[in-house]
């Protein structure tokens, strides 16, 4: 589970802008947002860093 879309929207960034900040494709941001793709630990850390939050605020395990 993640709050990637919510946090990205809060900053007014497009998927392409977030992808550019992290250094991945827009497809990767999109598939993570839609919970189709589970990112690796380095990518989760990069996403959290780009959004200025901790990984725990961005991702959590579903019950």
């Amino acid at each position: 589970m993640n709050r990637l879309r919510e946090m990205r929207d809060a900053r007014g960034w497009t998927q392409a802008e977030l992808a550019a900040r992290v250094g991945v494709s827009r497809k990767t941001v999109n598939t993570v947002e839609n919970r189709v793709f589970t990112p690796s630990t380095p990518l989760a850390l990069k996403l959290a860093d780009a959004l200025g939050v901790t990984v725990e605020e961005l991702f959590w395990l579903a019950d």
Partner: protein
Amino acid sequence: MVEVDRVEKAERLGRSRSRVFFVLAMVFFAQQAAYFASPAASRASPLQIGAWFVLVILLLLLLATGGFLFKGRKVWDLLNDETARTNRAAAQALGFWVTIIMALAVYVESIFDPLTLNEGLHIIVTTGVGAALISFAVRERRAHQIG
């Protein structure tokens, strides 16, 4: 940070790649179906075998690298980021299993209807490479269409 333009360029190329890979796999299968439908005597033509061999090497290179090697390192890195690498690994795994299953099928078939070594290898390699290529194209296409 990567430029947004570069991300958008990689997006366009990624979509094209999934379409091109799918079409290439279809052309490859059609070509091989025509090859096996032709009389056995004409199949030994060096031109036909050479064309198949070159195409297999080309498709394997595309599968191994993700293609678009000449578009620049930064765009290539975006095209082959984590999701693309994951999709490619899954496609290669599927290609492996299809190859093994086809090898077993050819082995059993050869007991009843003997095949030459060349024919058997041709069938096994064609199905394995084609299946991996289609799988990668479909996975990438699906990933692009989500959302």
